């Protein structure tokens, strides 16, 4: 009698993701507890899940592992992104605690969905196979679609969820079709084996079209122009804490997969793709910045600004190599803390009817709440790229990589964009510091957890700005194995 032979399954490489998934399952299980149980438990479990995943990630640093027949690759690249994503997740959990209570949207599904979305992002970073890329992307996206519509009674929230879902579904189908074509061209979905096949015939039209469709799918998820149409409405309509997660974690996850797919599959291929990415980068930053200039809603402005920042990151990707890809990783790290912080300040400001999201709501903030104004001011200055804050170092590396690789004019377009961007970021500072309060008073929620999140983010942007070297080295070490 033959025994059933189980394939050997290594759960180690999945450990960080499993911690988050486990926490999500635990939150759902806790929901059956009697009503009398303290409502903070779910939030605490979520926070513990994020911190636990962070610790599990740090513990596995420099011990690469592969599991499920190379479908999951937990190398330093994935671990670096796990750190970014876990920090983003933890900050968002902290910011959500009081925000949800105030907006009356507290429910255990929220925490579970945040955890599942985070797990999807982490898995995306570790995906060594296009099928896992798709699965992880869907896990992340489906959770985020629901989260975007969390404010059931608000039209904008519903609109955001609907748009996000419809356009996201489009993107997913592009991605899936691309995967199918790549599979047809190469006979495999494993990235390493695709690379081996592609190296012998890089101009196979089926593969080129397949990869192009993959780029469309990723373009949606990282919100690069021309696939950015959903961004402003979703960022504006979704609950601010969810917007923060979409802007930081989901972008990091999608970028991780994009970088891995591009660098691994195109390893031995002449860099034809750079021209396409070049155009995408230039258009993305320019469109993002120019449209952001005209926004009067802070969330919408940050949405367009996030598009512009994707453009800067694409500049690093164009440059390629350890320097270029490494600069993108570092940029994402700085961008995550800065953006989470900026949205975090919004979650703490409210006016009579809901949130304070108009730029004019922030008039005179410096007089009413100097600490909050200073925090938002620093986040905005970091987004402008003023030293010695993290955003400056991020830009410095990205444009440095571009100059090194010979893309000087792309760097020039980038820096001119940064100068233009200064206008709309500084406009918020003008309102906060140079104008008197106007209209109905904006009030400020005092929240220990929210304050803690902002403090962590502030500390991070100052630390990354003053002492970036160790983190840059980590980022470059993380991408090095991909390029072998």
């Amino acid at each position, binding site marked *: 009698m033959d025994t059933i032979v189980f394939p050997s399954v290594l759960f180690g490489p999945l450990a960080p993701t499993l911690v988050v998934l486990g926490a999500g399952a635990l939150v759902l299980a806790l929901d059956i507890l009697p009503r009398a149980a303290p409502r903070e438990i779910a939030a605490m479990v979520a926070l513990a899940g994020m911190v636990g995943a962070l610790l599990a990630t740090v513990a596995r640093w420099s011990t690469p592992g592969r599991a499920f027949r190379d479908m999951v690759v937990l190398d330093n690249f994935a671990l670096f992104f796990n750190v970014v994503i876990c920090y983003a997740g933890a900050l968002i959990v902290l910011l959500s605690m009081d925000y949800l209570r105030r907006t009356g949207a507290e429910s255990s599904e929220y925490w579970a969905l945040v955890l599942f979305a985070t797990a999807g992002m982490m898995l995306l970073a570790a995906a060594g196979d296009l099928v896992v890329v798709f699965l992880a992307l869907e896990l992340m996206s489906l959770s985020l679609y629901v989260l975007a519509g969390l404010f059931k009674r608000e039209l904008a929230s519903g609109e955001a969820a609907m748009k996000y879902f419809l356009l996201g579904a489009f993107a997913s189908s592009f991605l899936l079709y691309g995967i199918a074509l790549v599979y047809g061209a190469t006979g495999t979905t494993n990235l390493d084996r695709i690379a081996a096949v592609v190296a012998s015939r890089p101009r196979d039209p089926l593969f080129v079209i397949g990869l192009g469709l993959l780029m469309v799918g990723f373009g949606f998820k990282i919100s690069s122009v021309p696939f950015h149409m959903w961004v402003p409405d979703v960022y504006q309509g979704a609950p601010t804490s969810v917007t923060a997660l979409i802007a930081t974690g989901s972008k990091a996850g999608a970028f991780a997969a994009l970088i891995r797919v591009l660098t691994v599959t195109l390893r031995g291929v002449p860099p034809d793709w750079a021209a396409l990415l070049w155009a995408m980068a230039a258009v993305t930053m320019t469109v993002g910045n120019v449209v952001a200039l005209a926004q009067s809603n802070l969330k919408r402005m940050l949405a367009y600004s996030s598009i512009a920042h994707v453009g800067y990151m694409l500049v690093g990707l164009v440059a390629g190599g350890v320097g270029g890809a490494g600069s993108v990783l570092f940029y994402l790290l700085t961008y995550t803390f800065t953006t989470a912080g900026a949205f975090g300040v919004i979650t703490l400001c409210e006016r009579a009817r809901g949130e304070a999201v108009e730029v004019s709501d922030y008039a005179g903030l410096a007089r009413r709440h100097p600490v909050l104004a200073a925090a938002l001011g620093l986040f905005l*200055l970091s987004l402008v790229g*003023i*030293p*010695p804050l993290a955003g*400056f170092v991020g830009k*410095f590396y990205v*444009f*440095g990589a571009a*100059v*090194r690789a010979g893309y*000087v004019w792309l*760097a*020039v377009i980038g*820096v*001119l964009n*940064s*100068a233009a961007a*200064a*206008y709309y970021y*500084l*406009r918020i500072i*003008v309102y906060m*510091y*140079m*104008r008197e309060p106007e209209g109905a008073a904006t009030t400020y929620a005092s929240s220990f957890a929210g304050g803690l999140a902002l403090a962590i983010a502030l500390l991070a942007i100052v630390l990354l700005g003053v002492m*970036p*070297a160790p983190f*840059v*080295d980590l980022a470059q070490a993380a991408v090095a194995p991909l390029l072998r």
Partner: protein
Amino acid sequence: MIPLVSVVTFLPGLAGLALLFLPRRAAGVLWPAALAAAVVTFLLSLPLYFGFDAELIGYQFEEHARWMPTLGVSYHVGVDGISLLLVLLTTFLMPLALASAWDSIEDRVKEFVATMLILETGMLGVFVSLDLFLFYVFWEAMLIPMYFVIGVWGGPNRIYAAVKFVLYTMVGSMLMLVAILALYYQYGAATGRYTFDLPLLTQYVMAPGRAQSLMFLGFALAFAIKVPLFPFHTWLPDAHVEAPTAGSVILAGVLLKMGTYGFLRFCLPLFPDAALAYGPLVFTLAVIGVIYGAWVSTVQPDMKKLVAYSSVSHLGFVMLGIFTLNQQGLVGGLIQMVNHGLSTGALFLMVGMIYERRHSRLIADFGGLWQVIPAFSALFLVVTLSSLGLPGLNGFVGEFLLLLGAFQRNPWMAALATTGIIFAAVYMLWMYQRVVFGEVTRDANRRLADLTTREWAVLVPVVALIVWIGVYPAAFTGKTETTIEALIAQVQSKTSAHR
């Protein structure tokens, strides 16, 4: 060994940050504490002057510390004959600017003094940095406090002026960032050593050509906007007029010098071929600036605006001196940077004093002030004459030297520029005459109070220095001559290397 340069650089900024955390009930100590910090900074900077060996070539009081070794970024600071005077100018003007604001700034005092002190650290950092990365950090970081000084405490049109100031400067400095990166990678590719260290980079002889020209232009645009060189000057009148008096003093006294300093420190030694090639263009723009600034000053009805446009003219002279690329011109240009800081700083201070009394800066609103406030009028006369370059006062020394240099380079241009001095006499003296001489034309001016003790304390040091430089310029030129000689020798040896 005390790291003197670092102490001088960071003391004001740290004091400013500390003051931000002062509790509200201790608001009374804000002004004294801020002033004390600025004065102590000045006193600490004096040993730099006295300990500076004028015979030595190269940097002194150097400090070197690891910062980001993998990237070739280090914390490297020091002073030479060029930066020494500008450091002293900065530490000298800041206490005066703060003292002048003591009574006039009443809103958000804590934020004001903190911003000013942080600004001082930024400016000093620009002058002492010997690492391009470090320099760029200070260069950019310094923008933000100035933005706040104009935007929060400025006049009615302050927000427009503040945003314009930042955007203009940002465009230039962003392109400079690309040029810095290009230089870094070119040097790295050529020598195998990637570094931002300025002394190392200046040793590198770059081949003339398109790359050098583009890098030169990247740096030069940033500096030209800051100077400001015609036609990049349009932010200046807005910023100067809208800024509070203390802000104008610092803006004119120190910030503009960062542009001319940049040309001396970076453009000439790093890109000598391009500097020579573009020299005639810069020369021409400088002369246009000299004459244009003077003409526009002449027709200004507002004293502050008049002084602002006169800066365009004076800085044109400085640029003229720098791009003569000879000893007299460069020393004259450098001394003229200090002179302009003192004279124009003092002019802004005095216009501010008169504005506090009458809440008007229009020349037409005054007349016959000598009968009412003679002490003010007398000091105003000294400062006015210094600004137009009367022999015996500081302005003459600088202008004489740099015009001497300019005549050797291009006599026609120099002759044109000299007319700027004549126009300077026209606009300054005409303004002075309308404001101070004649009968008292407005009743509101009859009861004006003369200088207070605090105002005496602010003005006497400046006037003393104005006279000192005018009578004994060697005390200052002597510190710079060796450095300038070395700079010229370096430019010459580099440009002749590929002939």
